[in-house]
């Protein structure tokens, strides 16, 4: 009987071990070059994998940056955008009106100058001809907007004062309130003799009050044109020659003062009317419109805190035949000796894992900032933390061993369960045995830092109640993975963010939720509703290399959040 049969080492074994164990042989000189080449290829693959991760991160950062920039731009330009939008809306309802108004304003100086410059030639009688001519021009141009006539007249007056300085007479055109654009402008002309015969100033202003219909179709244009209107009136005053202002005729000076007062009051009146028209357009009172505008400006931002207890399915299954998979790498694959006790226990452990793996308490907590893109649509982004947990009730322990050469010293690896060996191949393990013990529990815990971004739509149900529907995506960064057992025979395993672990460091997830909310006050509202969060990848970084089939994990839970509206009055 050999020593092997007796489990005793004989002289032959000792001699071979003495001679061969520490024997040396020289490899070929180019072997290192081949290894170097293989390492370079490996590093290249690793580098490419990291580049994919960095590209995804860069893309996510870019999207977030662009969204933030767009929101800020939108926020700061919101008021101007609203005004421009209303103006554009008015332009559409008034074909060619505003365009022609602007053209009229630009053309007005020349027209007014031409008409006024003809005064000296035509003498006294020409005074009546000028307003008629101007009136014709104004009526022609103001077929759609009566205020363009006023602009024309005022702008023209300013120009005419400087151009007709040698006219020998000051012609002051003041208008009495007209009846509207359709009626044309009703001008009364006051021709005032200048104290200096060679100097003349023509001040022409025509203010006609338009009827409601006219305002209704060009209110925004009026609102915007008020500023040049007012400035032109002031310029008209300052453009009057000093000699004229120093004259003893207080009535003329008073006339100019009254003129400016009239211009100011008329501007304010028009501004009020414009606001009224805007309010009518929006079907609100002027004060409400103002309040809503302020509210829309101030109420755009909100912050919220959310908490979502959930059910978590890690979606990691067991191979069909665990021991068969192991035997695939053994010498006797398919041979008669593969079904021993270890093999049976391994298969039972696999079945037990399949049957007894249940969800455990999981949760997600998020802090989000909200920005109202539209009245009912809100963009949400923030940061969060998720802890997903699953649990297996098990009764099998896998022991793995390595043997130190020469000493027969058996080194036992830490005990584990069927879970971790199914995730990878321990090529340094010499052997394994599967033993049945008392029941114990294994918990799998995955902790992520999440960066969510999404959209939420709100719809009113009542005064205080509303419903919502939300959806979004999130980048989830794995910070810790822990496999904990309730027995001391199985060693707990924990992977930190920087540890080499079989689990994916970063994965994207998508989530949808819907539910109901209640406004506690103008500032605070609460929401609650079911939420589904599905991960777009498996938990393992390289699922193809794992023995166990890998699916994408998901959670189903209840999302509860408290939202605080910024900038609103209580």
């Amino acid at each position, binding site marked *: 009987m050999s020593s*092997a049969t007796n489990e005793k080492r004989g002289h032959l074994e000792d001699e071979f071990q003495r001679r061969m164990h520490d024997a040396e042989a020289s490899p070929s000189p180019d072997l290192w070059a081949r290894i170097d080449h293989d390492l370079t290829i490996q590093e290249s693959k690793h580098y490419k994998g990291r580049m994919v991760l960095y590209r995804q991160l860069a893309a996510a950062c870019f999207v977030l940056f662009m969204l933030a920039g767009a929101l800020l731009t939108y926020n700061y330009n919101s008021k101007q955008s609203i005004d421009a939008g209303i103006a554009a809306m008015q332009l559409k309802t008034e074909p060619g009106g505003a365009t022609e108004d602007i053209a009229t304003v630009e053309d007005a100086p020349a027209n007014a100058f031409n008409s006024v410059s003809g005064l000296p030639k035509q003498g006294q009688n020409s005074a009546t001809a000028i307003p008629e001519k101007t009136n014709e021009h104004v009526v022609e141009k103001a077929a759609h907007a009566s205020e363009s006539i006023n602009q024309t007249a005022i702008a023209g007056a300013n120009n005419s004062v400087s151009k007709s300085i040698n006219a020998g007479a000051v012609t002051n055109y003041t208008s009495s309130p007209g009846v509207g654009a359709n009626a044309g402008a009703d001008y009364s002309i006051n021709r005032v003799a200048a104290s200096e015969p060679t100097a003349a100033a023509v001040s022409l202003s025509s203010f006609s009050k338009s009827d409601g219909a006219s305002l209704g179709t060009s209110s925004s244009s009026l609102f915007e044109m008020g500023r040049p209107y007012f400035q032109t009136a002031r310029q008209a005053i300052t453009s009057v020659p000093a000699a004229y202002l120093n004259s003893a005729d207080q009535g003329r000076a008073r006339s100019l003062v009254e003129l400016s007062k009239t211009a100011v009051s008329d501007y304010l009146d028009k501004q009020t009317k414009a606001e009224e028209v805007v309010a009518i357009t929006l079907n609100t009172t002027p004060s409400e419109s103002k309040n809503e505008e302020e509210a829309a400006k101030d109420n755009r931002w909100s912050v919220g805190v959310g908490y979502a207890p959930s059910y978590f399915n890690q979606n990691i299954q067991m191979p069909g035949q665990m021991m068969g998979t192991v035997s695939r790498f053994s010498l006797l694959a398919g041979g008669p000796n593969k079904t021993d006790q270890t093999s049976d226990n391994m298969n039972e452990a696999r079945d037990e894992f399949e049957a007894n793996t249940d969800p455990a308490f999981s949760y997600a907590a998020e802090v989000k900032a909200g920005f109202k893109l539209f009245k009912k649509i809100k963009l949400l982004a923030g940061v969060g933390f998720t802890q997903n947990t699953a649990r297996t009730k098990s009764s099998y322990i896998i022991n793995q061993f390595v043997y130190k050469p020469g000493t027969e010293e058996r080194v036992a690896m830490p005990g584990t369960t069927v879970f971790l060996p199914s995730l990878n191949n321990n090529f340094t393990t*010499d052997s394994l045995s599967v033993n049945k013990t008392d029941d114990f529990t294994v918990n799998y815990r995955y902790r992520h830092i999440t960066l969510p971004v999404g959209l939420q739509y709100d719809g009113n149900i009542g005064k205080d109640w509303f419903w919502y529907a939300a959806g979004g995506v999130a980048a989830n960064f794995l910070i810790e993975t822990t496999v904990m057992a309730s027995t001391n025979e199985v060693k707990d395993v924990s992977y930190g963010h920087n540890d080499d672990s079989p689990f994916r460091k970063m994965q994207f997830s998508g989530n949808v939720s819907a539910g109901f909310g209640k406004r506690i006050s103008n500032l605070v509202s609460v929401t609650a509703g079911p939420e589904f969060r599905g991960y777009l990848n498996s938990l393992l970084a390289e699922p193809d290399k794992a023995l166990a089939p890998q699916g994408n994990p998901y959670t189903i839970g209840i999302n509860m959040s408290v939202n605080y509206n910024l900038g609103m009055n209580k």
Partner: protein
Amino acid sequence: MNLFTKSKSEEDKLIEGCIAGKRDMQRLLYDLYSKKMMAVCLRYAPTNFEAEDIMQEAFVKVFTNLQNFKKDCPLEFWIRKIMVNTALKHLRSKQLLTVSHEAEEVTNLSDTANLSEYSLDELMSMIQSLAPRYRMVFNLYAIEGYNHKEIGEMLGISEGTSKSQYSRARAILQGMLTRQEKNYNEHVISN
């Protein structure tokens, strides 16, 4: 040169350098262990070419998995384990582990052997001449120091099968040694 003669800190620095991907450190580690590991690979592989293929693949595994080395055993032992497992995998992929009938030709011989008279190349040639499965079991039991239960679990065979195959491998080697000794004695007498 053996790393055991080096201070622990130097070995740690060497490992850290290899993990960091420093090629000069990796080359140093290779130089330290390449000769011993080549001898290991030669014992498992039938030819020098295949031994170098095994060693190449194994060293790449060493460098890409060195961060998993827990330092609960000597680094040389850890590297040797990777060599052995890579050799097993290599031979499985080559379908070389088939049952041989050589065992039928031999019987148990005496346990007396004096290998000092044989060169290392001669001993290596004897081992390499064994059928792959016998060579594997003989290497694992006689030289690496595993027992048959563990060899059976490693190779996916029963403990009894491992004992049986080792017994046959041992008998073959003893027969080789006996024949060599007989030939040597005849050669000396004839001269």
